[in-house]
């Protein structure tokens, strides 16, 4: 059979290659469309925020009078403390919940119920979580506190961490578990030494993304943590957070406050960005170590 190169080259001008070209064009357009708002938001925040942003801004107190300048030290402290506490509560609980769902409960009634509950919880608007904490904690104890904010954020993060853990454990092949059992290990050993390490990179990036989201939450914090102009590193007593300060400062009708709002927004974006980078680095390092390329 005689074959020329022409027989093996891509046909031109037929219906399929036209469809192909259209699809490629559409894809390229949507990439650009997606990039536009992202780039605009980022450049605008950097442009407006960098006027005030700096080490002084991150550490000084928030001015109480109508003055320009000043910093967001208390809000940085509050965001780190509240998000950190929320993480310390929700990540261990969430990982345990995910382990239960995939390794023990599977399709039992309690597991199915927990799964439905988690899904419902994921859909609850964050302000409702705030309202819940406000009613059950703030009103009863008659005090606004960082702890109340941390609990509201933890409630938001919990379902995300549970499902991320479950999904990642589900991806671990059962062959590995059988291999472990066949060597005479118990279920807890198998989970701890084989299933969890294999799923860890995914669990960590899921958890860190949940943290980054929680750090930016405003609604549930607005009415449960109160306000302060001095850093409060304790979980009791009123506190403040970057997201809340952005809201307060941005709604004030003078330039100094608005500058602070933009710089606080930049700070928050940088914190979220740092978490995202950390998530990638950590899961890449763990993946490399386990060799699961």
């Amino acid at each position, binding site marked *: 059979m005689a074959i020329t190169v022409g027989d093996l080259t891509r046909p031109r001008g037929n219906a399929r290659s036209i469809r192909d070209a259209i699809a490629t064009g559409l894809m390229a357009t949507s990439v650009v469309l997606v990039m536009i708002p992202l780039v605009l938001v980022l450049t605008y925040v950097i442009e407006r925020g960098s006027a005030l942003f700096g080490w002084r801004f991150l550490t000084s107190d928030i001015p109480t009078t109508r003055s320009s300048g000043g910093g967001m030290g208390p809000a940085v402290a509050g965001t780190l403390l509240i998000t950190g506490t929320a993480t310390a509560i929700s990540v261990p609980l969430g990982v345990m919940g995910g382990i239960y769902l995939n390794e023990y409960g599977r399709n039992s009634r309690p597991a199915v119920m927990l799964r439905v509950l988690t899904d419902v919880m994921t859909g609850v608007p964050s302000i409702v979580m705030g309202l819940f904490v406000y009613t059950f904690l703030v009103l009863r104890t008659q005090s606004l506190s960082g702890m109340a904010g941390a609990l509201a954020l933890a409630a938001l993060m919990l379902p995300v961490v549970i499902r991320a853990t479950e999904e990642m454990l589900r991806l671990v092949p059962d062959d590995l578990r059988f291999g472990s059992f066949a060597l005479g290990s118990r279920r807890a050993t198998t989970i701890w030494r084989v299933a969890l390490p294999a799923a860890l990179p995914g669990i960590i990036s899921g958890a860190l993304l949940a943290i980054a989201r929680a750090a930016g939450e405003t609604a549930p914090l607005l009415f449960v943590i109160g306000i302060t102009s001095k850093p409060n590193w304790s979980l009791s007593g009123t506190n403040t957070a970057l997201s809340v300060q952005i809201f307060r400062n941005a709604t004030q009708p003078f330039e100094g406050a608005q500058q602070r709002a933009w710089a606080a927004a930049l700070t928050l974006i940088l914190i979220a960005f740092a978490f995202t980078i950390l998530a990638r680095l950590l899961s890449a390092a763990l993946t490399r170590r386990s*060799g699961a390329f």
Partner: protein
Amino acid sequence: MSMADDDIRPALAERVDDIAVTDDVEVFEVTGLAVRYDEVTAISEVDLTICEREITAFIGPSGCGKSTVLRCFNRMNDLIDSAHVEGSVLYHGVDLYDPRVDPVVVRRRIGMVFQKPNPFPKSIYDNIAYGPRIAGIKADLDGIVEQSLTRAGLWDEAKDRLRTSALGLSGGQQQRLCIARAIAVSPDVLLMDEPCSSLDPIATGRIEELMREIKNDYTIIIVTHNMQQAARVSDRTAFFTAEVHGPTGQRRGRLVEFDNTGTIFSNPADERTEAYITGRFG
């Protein structure tokens, strides 16, 4: 694949001398074994005796219950919710299904190698050390790792990369790693479920060679679809088949014949065995 008997006879003839079926110590004594998955009985009426330091091969068409029977020897069926085991499996005279028996302890003595190599996503070293570590052995892990890899014929290839991921090994190397991992806990019995099915002839040859070498210390049961392999390595062979059972039309596994490998392949008593090994079946 053609399974003509003239493929098997040379394999047998080569090793007539070393098929040493003696009146050995019994390791397993199986009587009236039946396994069902929920309502469906996968296999029933299995009676077998497995002798110490012998290689016993399980052959038979797909779905006849070879893997199911194999998993009864180390209680891996316990991990399948729907599986129910009836009958008795005596291990050195002790009923493995006695309520006082802990399956975890059983599995430390009776190791298993799976059809698909399943190394943990850890380093080669950590894979081998896994069993000893969970058994609480801390002394001389290096020695255990070296010895196990050497026995599995992987030491030379792996010694310079012990700390690298086991997933970087080839399929055949991974399977030898799994064998090394299984023997690192010094089991008494090694159960192998089609250990060579994903390997090329050279890797298969190495594993068969390895089985012959370690057979002096271990009792081995191997499931295989490769009749030449059964003829080459095993001392005794059990032939299973699946037959339509009763009015429901469900297929149920049966042990048809269990004898010295030489007899099974050259002079089987049952015509179904004869049909299977000569390739007139399935």
